[in-house]
């Protein structure tokens, strides 16, 4: 099942700044909503998003309940070398999703 969508250019020139767009499937339950009976729906969010480039962390985001459902995170990174970009989302209740994308750098 699609848990995340990642858009990365397949190739880039060395030193070029590339745009990365990520979209994760997650309700991002704030912990402020109530059921019809008035009971609080417990918080259940993605807490951290990390991007590593050939194993080196290049971008990290700490998320709070104010991030919208199905969070979009778009950012840039410098194309330094051919390899693998790895994206990881970690959150409450053991939530953990990893997506990878290959990038060819000449």
């Amino acid at each position, binding site marked *: 099942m*699609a848990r995340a969508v990642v*858009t990365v250019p397949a190739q880039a020139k060395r030193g070029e700044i590339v745009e990365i767009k990520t979209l994760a499937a997650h309700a991002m339950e704030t912990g402020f909503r109530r059921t019809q009976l008035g009971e609080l729906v417990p918080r259940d969010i993605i807490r951290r998003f990390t991007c590593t480039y050939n194993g080196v962390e290049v971008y990290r985001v700490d998320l709070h309940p104010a991030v919208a459902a199905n969070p979009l995170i778009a950012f840039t990174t410098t194309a330094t070398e051919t390899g693998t970009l790895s994206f990881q989302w970690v959150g409450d209740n053991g939530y953990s999703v990893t997506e990878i994308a290959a990038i060819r750098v000449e």
Partner: protein
Amino acid sequence: MTARAARLILALAAARLFVEPAAAGEIPSSERRSGYEFMSRETRAMQDDDTGNPGTLWMLDGEALWKRKAGTADRACSDCHGDARESMKAVAARYPAFDPALRRPVNLEQRINACRVGRQKAPGLAYESKDLLALTAYVARQSRGLPINITIDARTRPFLEAGREAFFRRQGQLNLACAQCHDDHWSGKLAGSPITQAHPTGYPLYRLEWQGLGSLERRLRGCLTGVRAESYPYGAPELVNLELYLMWRANGMRMETPAVRP
């Protein structure tokens, strides 16, 4: 009756709040606009970009479900229908469509479930379940950009008329008819939000208010609750008749599934 009361009633009648809306109040085709045009630039951008449109997540799920074998018949949608990009092209644009076995129109969700139960011999998918929304979104996505194409014949005309009658009928504690807002007062505002013409061009769609993807029936039930009427259950013939009328009323407009709306 005092002169003042008479003037007040005349003013209200002029405002057409106490006058039964005429069928001729329908929007002329040159003035028809999708809900897309009532949104902010940013929300439109969210719809236009597949890589950022949350509906894409459901659509990808639908693509996976399309290929997955199910039921005691151990059959996938693709086993009969092949590549959805070919076989499902323009299909959603002509739903609700007449089902000869049931002798009435059915919507796309009901058509998908009929296949699941009848051909795949699998249990039907619950209305508004993740799987049914995903499959419906995937099938409807294959109509994106194509004009809505509802044809009415002797079999479907009575259901269209039932839907039209419901659209013009005052209901609920607020005693409002759909037409009063969506034919007569579109481009006005309700509690700060624009009133659209209510064309179902993008269903199932990602609604920011729901923070998720939902069907046209979910939206209709929300509207009925909004005028403080008793809402029909999912799949009710009254809802499908209204869907048929709304799609027919939007004939020729382009499908946008999966749309984004506030």
